[in-house]
């Protein structure tokens, strides 16, 4: 499942970038990169097909943003993959996956509070303001910096949503060592986060979907957690 989506993402990214490239009229024409990401892409193509003549202008001859960043960024705005388009092309795969940033570095308070919390623009900028300006060619980075400049918040689209009559306690689950992935899916492998479908079956052969009550209860029963109604409903 996840592999499939990963491939889709990669392909999407590649397609997205390919679209940026000047299409090759005839073989002996040299391809000129118009951005760092394009440069990465051209190098990759040349690796496949050495005959290809490419030219990287010096201003685009930079390791930053990395090719992975370019691909993730492109994948995060790919509408063909599941999940809503977010205001910023933020890739959990890139941050939590590739760079191994701990979930609670950004979602701090998850172990102290009922709610996980979403990082502030300040927190994002904490790292990103140190990055070379070439990163600005990524739309997501520009959007982020605009928000910081204008001091306006980012309006993320909520994906994992419980009804308001459910009082979920992140701290209890995190402290018990329940992996974030068991409810949120392998976000560290997603460029664009989406609700990973998950179905459990009751003994009477009835399915219960992710984030439905039965889905929670089965886990609670399996782990001997509370099945008292007011644990979640009050």
């Amino acid at each position: 499942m996840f592999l499939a989506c990963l491939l889709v993402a990669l392909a999407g990214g590649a397609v997205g970038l390919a679209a940026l490239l000047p299409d090759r009229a005839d073989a002996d024409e040299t391809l000129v990169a118009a951005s760092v990401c394009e440069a990465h892409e051209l190098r990759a193509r040349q690796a496949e097909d050495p005959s290809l003549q490419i030219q990287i202008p010096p201003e685009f001859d930079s390791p930053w943003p990395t090719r992975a960043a370019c691909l993730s960024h492109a994948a995060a705005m790919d509408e063909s993959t599941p999940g809503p388009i977010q205001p910023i092309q933020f890739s959990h795969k890139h941050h939590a996956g590739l760079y191994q940033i701990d979930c609670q570095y950004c979602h701090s308070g998850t172990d102290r509070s009922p709610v996980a919390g979403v990082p502030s623009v300040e927190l994002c900028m904490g790292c990103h303001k140190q990055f070379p300006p070439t990163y600005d060619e990524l739309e997501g980075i520009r959007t982020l910096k605009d928000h910081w400049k204008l001091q306006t918040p980012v309006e993320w689209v909520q994906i994992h949503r419980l009804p308001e009559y459910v009082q979920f306690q992140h701290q209890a689950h995190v402290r018990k060592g329940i992996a974030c992935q068991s409810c949120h899916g392998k976000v560290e492998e997603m460029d664009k986060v989406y609700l990973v479908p998950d179905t459990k079956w009751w003994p009477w052969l009835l399915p219960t979907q992710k984030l439905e009550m039965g889905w929670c209860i089965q886990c609670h029963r399996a782990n001997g957690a509370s099945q008292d109604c007011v644990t979640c409903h009050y």
Partner: protein
Amino acid sequence: MTPPPAESVAAMIRPVPRAPDSKVNRDLLAVMEGASLGYWALLGLSVAFVGLAGGIWIYQVYKGLGIAGYIHPVFWGAYIVTFVFWVGIAHAGTLISAILFLFRAKWRNAINRSAEAMTVIAVLTAAQFLGIHVGRIWKSYFILPYPNQRGLWVNFKSPLLWDTFAITTYATTSIVFLYVGLIPDLAIARDRAVGWRKLLYSVLSLGWQGTSRQWKSHNRSVLHLSGLATPLVLSVHSVVSWDFAVSIVPGWHATIFAPYFVAGAIFSGFAMVLTMMIPVRRIYGLEGYITNYHFENMSRFILLTSIIVAYAYGAEYFMAWYSGVESEQTAFYRRAFGPYWISTWTMILCNGVFPQLLWFKKLRTNVPFLFVLSVLINIGMWFERYVIIITGLSSEYDPAAWGIYTPSWYELGIVAGSFAFFAHLFLIFLKIFPVVAIAEVKEIAIHERSHAHAGEH
């Protein structure tokens, strides 16, 4: 023996002559034919009221139960009252069909069909109120023990669950009972109807031919259904009464409730049969089939049950006094002399006092009187439920939280609608199905005839 000559055999071959139809068929099927202006007017009126009530109900679902007259702490009102009322009405049918069948009371034949029809219609009417009175009808499926993703079941200790099961069972069984009884008559209608009715009756009568095999299974089924329906009819209103009896509300919490309610149900049921059948008999000239003798028998039942009900009223007050429980005594005192005294005395007069006139044979056989009385009894029985439910809730254990309830116009509209609903279904039934059990009437007729015939020998 030697074979008969061929020509004689040939001579025998001739078409079967179409037999003249029997009077019984003609009289009773005539009810279903044609419809007077009055009929259409009546039907139109009742349908209009159903529509009105439907509108009110939709508004209530949209706006909230607050449009009803509820006041803390009286959280059950006219809806539950009317629910219990209709469940009560439903009882006469099964009683007449089942119990009298078991007791081989042949006089039931003339009225059991209409009574059964009434039962089914009344139960359907009653069942709607369970939905009308809940706060979140769109979630009311929670009450069913169906397998769900939550893994959560229902509370079988709750009288409301018992209700759900009792009402469902009662509705289903009465429909089966009614239908099984109808099959032979539908065959009769099939043999004489034309056009769409022919088709309808052919389908419904399942190709009934009145063979011995069919009659044998039919008799046996009716017997068993009666055997099942008899305890059922007693259980259903007992269960309904337990909605109140198992609670701790002063005025509700009484062991006498089950028999009290069952008697009351039969009482009101018979009254309703009279209210419906007297006009029908008059309009369709069925005096020959539904005779004063039938009415008199029903009056006897009404008298009997009236006495039981009256006794129950007395017993309640006696127990309240004898128990020495102050909250009970207060509840009953307020019932008789408190804000609801009018309802209480209406109930006592209509259910306990007026029916005593039936001791006189003259009145038992006086049809107009019976009609008026039956209507009064229906009113009285509605108020009985009103008195029990409302007075019980209005003054409970905590005097600081007493409240006085009066139904709102919206509520009364829906209640009126329920009567219209009952009426329009019954009117339609009159025109589609034989209102008297033809086959059973014939059974008696033919027996008498053959005995007379045997006498000649």
